């Protein structure tokens, strides 16, 4: 059991959890992920490492409630335990002094982007960060990102915070404003956002690193369920990634593979919500 030491709600669907996992924390580096399972019945799901504290032996994960497993995990409290917490998995981000870099995060992708941005800043890069969400109540970690960036641009789809629009707009402007000066771009968020960020940087030939979030089972290279297609063939995201050159990724294949278990996921969510309603009804009836 891996104890949950701290939990907070970042927005209506996202939780932050600090989990005691000293072995994982000792080795964790920016860009890696863990495989988490709630209990004996749970699925193994990959979650990117949002922060780590080697001294305290903790890992911070951000959980977005998208399916039954994440919803259920969201109901756990401080003091509860997670049955599985395996990691750190995948290759860490290649952090070097590149010069000026841009770190682009969308929605829950801001969480894994944070330690990468911090590491890039600590390595002596000038970091321009761009973060975005649908609206201000979904946006989190603005201050944290600010603290590790030389410049931070915030945008929301509805304009409720920062400028109105999607992250690719300020990204394109940046590449226009400072031609040839941006050495590398990191783009992390929903697949569709990473796809468009990669399309935006392609004409400028700026290497663009994305962190792919495919369906996984073991997370150790054993099943191939996580495979993605690059220009030159398939890769296993869990061991060859999770970071890849966004210009080489077959995004349509990725998006379609992410949808494979959609029906089953919906079925599980409905069943879960139904059970929650029953529990509530019982609780109300009993009081």
């Amino acid at each position, binding site marked *: 059991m891996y104890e949950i030491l701290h939990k907070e709600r970042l927005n209506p669907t996202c939780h932050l959890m600090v989990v005691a996992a000293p072995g994982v924390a000792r*080795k964790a580096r920016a860009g890696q992920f863990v495989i988490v399972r709630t209990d004996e019945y749970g*699925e193994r799901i990959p979650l990117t490492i949002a922060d780590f504290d080697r001294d305290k032996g903790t890992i911070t994960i951000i959980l977005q409630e998208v399916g039954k497993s994440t919803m259920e995990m969201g109901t756990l409290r401080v003091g509860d335990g997670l*049955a599985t917490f*395996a990691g750190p998995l995948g290759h860490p981000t290649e952090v070097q002094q590149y010069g000026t870099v841009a770190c682009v995060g969308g929605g829950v992708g801001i969480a894994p982007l944070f330690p990468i941005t911090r590491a890039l800043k600590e390595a002596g890069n000038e970091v321009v960060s761009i973060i975005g969400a649908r609206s201000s109540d979904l946006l989190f970690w603005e201050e944290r990102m600010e603290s590790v960036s030389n410049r931070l641009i915030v945008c929301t789809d509805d304009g409720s915070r920062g400028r109105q629009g999607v992250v690719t707009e300020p990204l394109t402007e940046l590449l226009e404003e400072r031609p040839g000066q941006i050495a590398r771009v990191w783009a992390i968020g929903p697949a569709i956002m990473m796809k468009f960020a990669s399309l935006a940087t392609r004409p400028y030939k700026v290497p663009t690193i994305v962190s792919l979030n495919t369906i996984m*089972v073991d997370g*150790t*290279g*054993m*099943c191939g369920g996580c495979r993605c297609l690059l220009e030159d063939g398939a890769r296993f995201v869990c061991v060859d990634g999770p970071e890849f050159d966004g210009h080489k990724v077959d995004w349509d294949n990725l998006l*379609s593979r992410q949808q494979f278990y959609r029906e089953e996921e919906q079925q599980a969510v409905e069943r879960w919500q139904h059970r929650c309603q029953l529990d509530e009804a019982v609780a109300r009836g009993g009081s």
Partner: protein
Amino acid sequence: MAELTNKERMRIPRQDMPVQDAAARRANFDEVALGLETEAARLEAERCLQCSRPRCVEGCPVDVDIPGFIEAVRTGNLSEAVRIMKTRNSLPAICGRVCPQETQCEQLCILGKKGEPVAIGRLERIVGDWELRERTQALEKAPSTGKRVAVVGSGPAGLVCAVDVARQGHDVTLLESLHLPGGVLTYGIPEFRLPKSVVMGEINHAIENLGIRLCVDHVIGRIATLAELLDEYDAVFLGTGAGLPSFMDIPGVNLNGVMSANEFLSRVNLMRGYDFPQYDTPVKIGERVVVIGAGNVAMDAARCSIRLQELHGNGRGEVHIVYRRSREEVPARAEEVDHAEEEGVIFDFLTNPVEIMGDEAGKVTGMRCIRMQLGEPDDSGRRRPVPVEGSEFDLPVDTVIFALGTSPNPLVFVEAESLSRSRWGTVIADEETGRTTTARVWAGGDVVTGAATVVSAMGAGRRAAADIHAFLAGELEPWSDSET
């Protein structure tokens, strides 16, 4: 009862093992083969001629005294049978169920020359099952030596090595990357062939009695490297298996509905996907499933598919096994092939896929195959399948499961440059001792041989354990320079 003459013994027919009815078992994951009844087992044991130079033992990769244990079964002394068995094989309940007896011990049985061989595997199973219930043989640990040994991987090789090393009084830590121990026994071989209660029963018994520390969720190469283990432990055994799946290099392998047998079987067995939505991990099965390959892995995948179609689908559907060679070359255990056929799996021999087709949404819709014929023998001595020109045809399919060969998962080799490996990625180790090219590192099982068998992995674990103990006891020279 009076002693029988050999003639009389040879008149006793080979005793059939009761099995679940084929129609019924298509719709459940319960064990198919139910084990011999006590009287049938005694009769079967009577069939053994107690050869003075038993050939069967030569066929056993771990040299079990087969006539010895069979004689104990015949006289009803099961605890003696267990004792004899366990001096060579610590997991008889498992081996009795999964060993390919027809190509090992039973193939060499003298009775097989004219009739049917003694059902050694079935007898082994009843001995193992009896001991699972009775626990007559104590697993004892010698006084502590203070030496620490890390065993990486908890499949049959790692388990047996851990048990044997721990019995000598060494302090053993068993490191496993998944959340459950057992390796292929847990994630690969389905419940209906090897109940998980048998596997976990054996593992828990060993761990508790020998004080083995089991650390699951420990992916070596990530949470700790081999070099770090060597700092902390006096000896390290690598039993990490051959878990890396392979796909064919044909168009369409990344379509939705195409998966490796490892993924499919892990979802079904390790994650209990057949119990979805009780268990959270979904496993999708189509109405037209094709499994490519004809080893045990393929049979398991096909038979799980049949069951999922019955349980989760509407019972309609077809499951095909597509194999490029002919029936004679099928590498799976004979019993599994028979069971698969009884359950309705359709075999397409001398057939090879050339392309997988999909729709706009990226879902599999069909598979183009080509007919094969057998040509000249290849390196393995089997006749090489060659395509028959112009014989392509399309199969409508919605699920494709690749059950081709697997190779060692390289994760454990991170920062382990001194560990020599073959060009197939397998670890180079001495066959007798399990010693690798890195000092204080032993290896055995599929990680050394490539995908093989449970019993050969166990044998390798046992031989390495003996060498590790001799090494730790100072009875052996430390690694010679040529080895390091």
